[in-house]
């Protein structure tokens, strides 16, 4: 199993990919990807997900659904590092003909578990996959990464209630609580916190971790994996743009939603991550 420093190194590599690919694409959501990078890195490289890039349809694989589909650069970068496709392909992000579309497309890119981008649907899809795996007696786990702004979608709460009913212990939801959504802070736009208390009341196991602290992420995922009688939630407290915060601060925009870094700014960010 990789050590915490090794995982931190991997997260740095993935963050560099995110900056490069979105700047090359000229659009995309780097800051939303950076907040989730440590969680995604731990899932793919910390021994939590079993997968085989040569057999992306292996029925016993563990699954990650990126419900906040706009953060797909982090998913693509992790998949490239995991061997699903060459890292060079990351620079085709969002270009005509590329399998790396602006939001994940499971028909196009093997290894993508759900076509997302319309917020709110990932947890329901993950619940369906968890039920199917349980029905077939498979050990597979399903992880669903959700944005904190996305929690405004009522469907997420429908899925939370249904997962509690069916006690899908093979389902883990992770809320990337980076505190911002498109037009401002989640606290101001629509405050739905505290997520852990509210979702615990539905019957889930819940915990809150520091989502940009690799040791905390690994320990939280380990705790969730030990829950055997109900679905598990991890509220990951993160920062949008984590890893390049000084650069975003210098730009005067710590939300930095839905836009790539201009090449000169990207250069500074890459230096910070080197």
């Amino acid at each position: 199993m990789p050590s915490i420093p090794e995982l931190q190194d991997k997260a740095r590599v993935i963050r560099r990919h995110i900056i490069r690919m979105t700047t090359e694409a000229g659009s995309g959501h780097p800051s939303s990807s950076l907040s989730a990078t440590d969680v995604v890195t731990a899932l793919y490289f910390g021994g939590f997900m079993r997968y085989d890039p040569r057999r992306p349809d292996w029925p016993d694989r563990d699954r990650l659904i990126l419900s906040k589909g706009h953060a797909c650069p982090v998913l693509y970068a992790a998949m490239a590092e995991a061997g699903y496709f060459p890292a060079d392909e990351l620079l085709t992000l969002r270009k005509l003909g590329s399998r790396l579309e602006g939001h994940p497309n499971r028909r196009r890119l093997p290894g993508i578990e759900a076509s997302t981008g319309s917020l709110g649907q990932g947890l329901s899809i993950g619940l369906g996959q968890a039920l199917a795996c349980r029905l077939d007696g498979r050990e597979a786990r399903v992880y669903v990464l959700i944005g904190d702004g996305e929690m405004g979608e009522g469907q997420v709460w429908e899925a939370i209630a249904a997962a509690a009913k069916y006690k899908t212990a093979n389902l883990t939801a992770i809320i990337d609580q980076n505190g911002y959504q498109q037009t401002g802070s989640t606290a101001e736009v629509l405050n739905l916190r505290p997520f852990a208390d509210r979702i615990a009341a539905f019957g889930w196991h819940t915990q809150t971790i520091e989502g940009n602290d690799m040791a905390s992420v690994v320990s939280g995922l380990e705790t969730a994996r030990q829950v055997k009688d109900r679905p598990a939630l991890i509220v990951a407290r993160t920062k949008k743009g984590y890893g390049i915060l000084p650069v975003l601060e210098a730009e005067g925009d710590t939300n930095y939603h839905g836009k790539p870094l201009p090449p000169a700014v990207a250069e500074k960010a890459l230096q910070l991550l080197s």
Partner: protein
Amino acid sequence: MFGSASGLKLGQATRDAFGDALQDLGSRFPDVVVVDGDVGNSTRIEVFAKAFPDRAFNVGIAESNMVSVAGGLASAGKTPVTASFSCFLLCNAFDQIRMSVAFPHLNVKLVGTHAGISIGEDGPSQMGIEDVALACALPGLVVIVPADAPSTKQATEAILRYQGPVYLRLGRPKVSVIYAGGCDFQIGKANRVRDGKDVTLIANGIMVSAALDAAVELESGGVSARVLDMHTAKPIDEQAITAAARETGAIVVAEEHLAAGGLGSIVAATAARTQPVPMEFVNIGDTFAESGDPAGLMEKYGLTPAAIVAAARRVLSRKK
């Protein structure tokens, strides 16, 4: 309701035939699971759920979640059948059908019951009158509207055999049996249920038996009408439409649906391209209906054999 003039006997509602068929097929299709939005006793999906409780999920009154859960089940190898009233399924969960089912082209069978205005007293909020248009708008979705119980049973098996997303539209009231001797149901292939040479009546669902009654009435006036059961709205049977246009020279399309985007629009777009002929349309028009008894509603909103006969006479007068 319709079919007496053509000597048809009243049979099961299409939703009842579907419920029975699904249970019958349950053992032969072990990957089938059902997802219910707590209307299983109305959609008849509960018949399967009672026979195969381990393969049935009721997620409560939450159509959005219901459809996406079905998408998840399909993406992990199951063949989910998920059912609700056609209006709630298509209108409430349209984005979920779009993103969790159609876009990833998953093997989900969407079943919408209580279609049209023939549900009667419950009124417009419960009437699926735009569902065919919505379903047909989505790339890759197969859309089927069976006319009677025997063809619904065959359609149920056909959609389970077919790999890909399907919308099956069913009705609430009992309907006449058109295929008493069974039918050869093939997705995308219309059934010629009556032959004729002067005009073709193209219909689906409950309006097929109305069209058969209309054909009897037209015959008494010396008009020979062909009747096509166009049970598949998408993919449309272009060959049958083109042949009807060429061989009979006039078409009437009858459906229990809004004018916009339904079978009439699809048939017209097809004929316009392959063999343009005069056409008339029998449908709900551009209005929400109201509460009332089913027969009274069908009369008031123009969905009757008489309305089809009148449309046929209009189209015949335009025929060159």
